């Protein structure tokens, strides 16, 4: 059945070359853990992406219940975690995944660093990777505020103070992030918008560039 549907579409749109281009390429021996077990270090980039997919999916589902408003934010998180079926699991995936994605990304960065994969001609991909790192940190920072509990409030208080210590621009950055004079209602909606629209948009664009470059240039050679 599936084969027939696929063939029907393929006859009309010739999609085989497209997915071949994306998915069908040889894995070099030095990055294949079946040949050298130590090659598992090459998995961390893929794992980062896998967890990012989980983050996007679980985040989409969480917004079905979450509301970014200082009166209701905590109540809605409490409701979705304790009253909705599997709420603990879905929020747990997003909560733990947020830390895990940073860990995986860090390990991926170490691998790229110690195999020297950032060297020419792959410098641009390193730069894009570092930008992805910053966007991920931004996602972690903005997401931390959303439950609107004490930890969230004071973490943001501290985070914004740090941002405010930037020379010359600090005050502007602080007001931009806070959306006002205090960490409050306007900060919460702002962080929500950044967390679910702006930063994920930037992340997907950067990931597209990251993947395009690695397919174009190929994995770096053996040590």
């Amino acid at each position: 059945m599936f084969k027939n549907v696929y063939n029907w579409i393929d006859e009309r749109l010739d999609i085989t070359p497209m997915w071949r281009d994306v998915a069908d390429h040889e894995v070099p021996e030095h990055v294949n853990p079946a040949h050298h077990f130590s090659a598992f270090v090459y998995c961390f980039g893929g794992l980062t992406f896998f967890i990012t997919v989980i983050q996007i999916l679980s985040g989409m589902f969480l917004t079905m219940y979450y509301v970014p408003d200082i009166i209701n934010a905590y109540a809605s998180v409490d409701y979705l975690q304790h009253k909705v079926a599997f709420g603990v699991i879905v929020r747990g995936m997003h909560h733990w995944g947020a830390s895990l994605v940073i860990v995986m990304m860090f390990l991926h960065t170490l691998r790229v660093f110690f195999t020297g994969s950032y060297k020419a001609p792959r410098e641009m991909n390193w730069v894009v990777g570092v930008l992805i790192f910053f966007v991920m940190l931004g996602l972690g920072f903005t997401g931390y505020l959303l439950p609107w509990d004490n930890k969230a409030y004071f973490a943001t208080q501290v985070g914004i103070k740090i941002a405010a210590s930037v020379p010359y621009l600090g005050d502007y950055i602080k007001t931009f992030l806070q959306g006002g004079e205090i960490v409050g209602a306007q900060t919460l909606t702002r962080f929500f918008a950044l967390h679910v629209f702006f930063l994920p948009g930037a992340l997907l664009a950067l990931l597209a560039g990251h993947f395009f470059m690695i397919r174009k240039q190929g994995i770096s050679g053996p040590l």
Partner: protein
Amino acid sequence: MSEHNNQDAQHQGEKPVKRREMSRRQFLSYTLGGATAFMGAGMLVPMVRFAVDPVLQPKTKADWVKVVEAGQITDEPKSFKFKVHQVDGWYENDAELEAWIAKDKDGNLFALNPTCKHLGCTVNWNANPEYKEQYFCPCHGAHYTIDGKNLAVAPAPLDQYDLKVENGFVYVGQLGPNKRVK
């Protein structure tokens, strides 16, 4: 399952040995596909169950609410407001509902909900001089008899509240389809 014919046996004119066995490639793709599907399901099932939770919640039945003294109800329908405690996810409030309560010829009290069955606007008793002694909807001109029978536009009669009289007070309860109109 693919079938492999033993080529050598055929050449020697013997009965070909037919083996029904799975190729290595097929075994691997089934195993990998199965494992992937299992992990994917482990990820998606909690999320989907999370999303459809409201559909699977049991329906709550409305409590009885004291509305008015029974003595105040006449043959002419009158509007009464009453408050119902409402739990809406993480938000709880006392929502104000409206019932038009009247006494029929046999002296039975009945309460109708003024939500028009056409598209949900609010109807009023005797609101249009063209339709005297009727409920009239301002949106698309639906009108109903005193029993809530739909005369034009609306596809169904007005909904009716369960009603009981206790110690001289009228209580309304669960809202349901109209029982006065056949």
